[in-house]
């Protein structure tokens, strides 16, 4: 009986331990950026980044004053047709006191650049993370993903070809009265 109770308590303790443990933020890159009078620490949970994947970005502002706003411009490598994106940073849901970009991902391989604009009590400051290396996307080769994506179109094209034969026969039968 006692052994069973001990075992049950041990399992309960393990489960509650699991529930309380914070997954924590993995830091694979941490860099400092000077934006005028402000200093930012910019952390990524993967480095180098793989294109199009969702990345956890954590930005911390030293001696942050209330009411400070931070904006980021995410600038694609030269030669891509992607559009530069600008966004205000928002509070990180899991790490209080830090900032992040919601759904942060970089859409093409190459060297990206991120420019920060801080608006706070000491005025406006601008600084940049000059190089964010991005590799090709993970998993399936993209051509395979897109081939799978267009399967409904291939199926529908096959259906339309069958329809064309059916309607041609019907037109031949009624002399095109309804065409």
């Amino acid at each position, binding site marked *: 009986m006692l052994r069973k109770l001990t075992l049950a308590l041990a399992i309960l303790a393990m489960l509650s331990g699991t529930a309380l443990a914070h997954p924590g933020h993995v830091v694979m890159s941490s860099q400092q950026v000077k934006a005028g009078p402000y200093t930012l620490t910019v952390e990524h949970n993967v480095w180098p980044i793989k294109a*199009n*994947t*969702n*990345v956890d970005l954590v930005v911390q502002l030293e001696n942050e004053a209330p009411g400070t*706003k931070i*904006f980021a*411009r995410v600038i694609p490598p030269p030669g891509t*047709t*992607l*559009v*530069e*994106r*600008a*966004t*205000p940073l*928002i509070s990180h*849901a899991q790490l209080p006191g830090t900032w992040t970009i*919601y*759904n942060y*991902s970089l*859409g093409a391989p190459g060297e990206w650049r991120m420019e920060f604009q801080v608006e706070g009590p000491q005025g406006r400051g601008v600084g940049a993370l000059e190089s964010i290396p991005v590799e090709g*996307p*993970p*998993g*399936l080769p*993209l051509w395979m*993903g*897109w081939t*799978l*994506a*267009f*399967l*409904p*179109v291939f*199926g*529908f094209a096959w*259906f*339309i070809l069958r*329809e*064309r034969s*059916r*309607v041609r026969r*019907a*037109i031949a039968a009624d002399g095109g009265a*309804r*065409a």
Partner: protein
Amino acid sequence: MSAITGSAAALTGVDAERRESTFRLVGASVLTFFWFLLFLGTSWDIMWHSDVGPDRFWTAPHTMMYSGVAVAGLVSLYMVVATTVKFRRGAPGVTKANTTPWLGIFRAPLGFILSGVGVVGFLMSGGFDEFWHGMYGFDVTLWSPPHVSLLLSGIVGVFGAVYAMASEVSRARARGELRLSSVPVIGFVTTLALLILYTSVITPPAMTEKLLLGPFSLYPLMAGSAVAFVLVLAAAFLRMPGAATLTALLVTAIRFVAVVLPPLMVDWQARFEGLPYKPDKVGFTLTVLATPAWTLLAGVVVDLVYSLGQRYTSRMVAAVLAGVLAPVALFAVDRPWFRALDALPWVAKFGNIKQAMLSAHQGALYPTFAAVAVLGALTAWLGANFAVYLRYTEK
């Protein structure tokens, strides 16, 4: 005596035919409603992501999307099985002439079979989407292979509803009971309107992420092709004055629903989950922006050009002319891809980004209009040919 019996039997046949049409129309209308729910749920989901945020599989908009599709699948299945059973029992009004054989087992209206196939494709694409999110994380872009696959499967499903309604239009026409205000006609143009609205689910990144395709602005090529195909299809299938205008009117009406409902739904969801809006929230769903606001103008142009054009040339040439002029007129008046620059807060905040996007579109303006005209001609030709397929569909 035998003459009396014969006319009574004929009357019974027409009545049975009408009863079967009513049954199929009810099925097609319920199906269309649930495909509309997919559009509404997706519009809600897109606004949720742009304005509030956190993603997981079982959000309220995802529930609306997947349950809408699941019910569309159940309706399709019910119609296929019920019609098969009626055919096997030799029920009056269900014959070889008005059912399609499928897989050697079923005999059912083609539209419900096609819609069911669309549902199966959608659910399989949902699995593909989960696999993709496992590799890439949640919803980094609307233009991912599984998202495109989901949308294309949905479009196949809506084409099923188009077929189901079109065959009822053909049957009502054969009975001499067709008017522009008939239920099958209203149902048919509603399904066509959904095709244009579904396009607006996939076009927003052409306003925000990837603006150009070579020397052309991408958005007008996509939206213009859909508008030309659908409106010419409406005119060429129904061959009634006002058919394209009525279709465009329904696009405008459903667009209005998307203007009103998603903001209320997102607001409710944010309160329910206790989450704040993002500082750069857009304030409306992007499907509204991506559905041309002046589609009604394109509808009027198609009706005028198609009906007047036939006085001087063939139906096909009139259809192609309508397909050239309608999207060009539409985008001469309404340029949502330019309007997006003011509507998106993150673009409005950074003048240099807005200027760069504006310059890209301005530089591409003339080639874009030329390409819209060419693609409009091509898709109108496809629409007019597809209209003939539908005119030969009553089963």
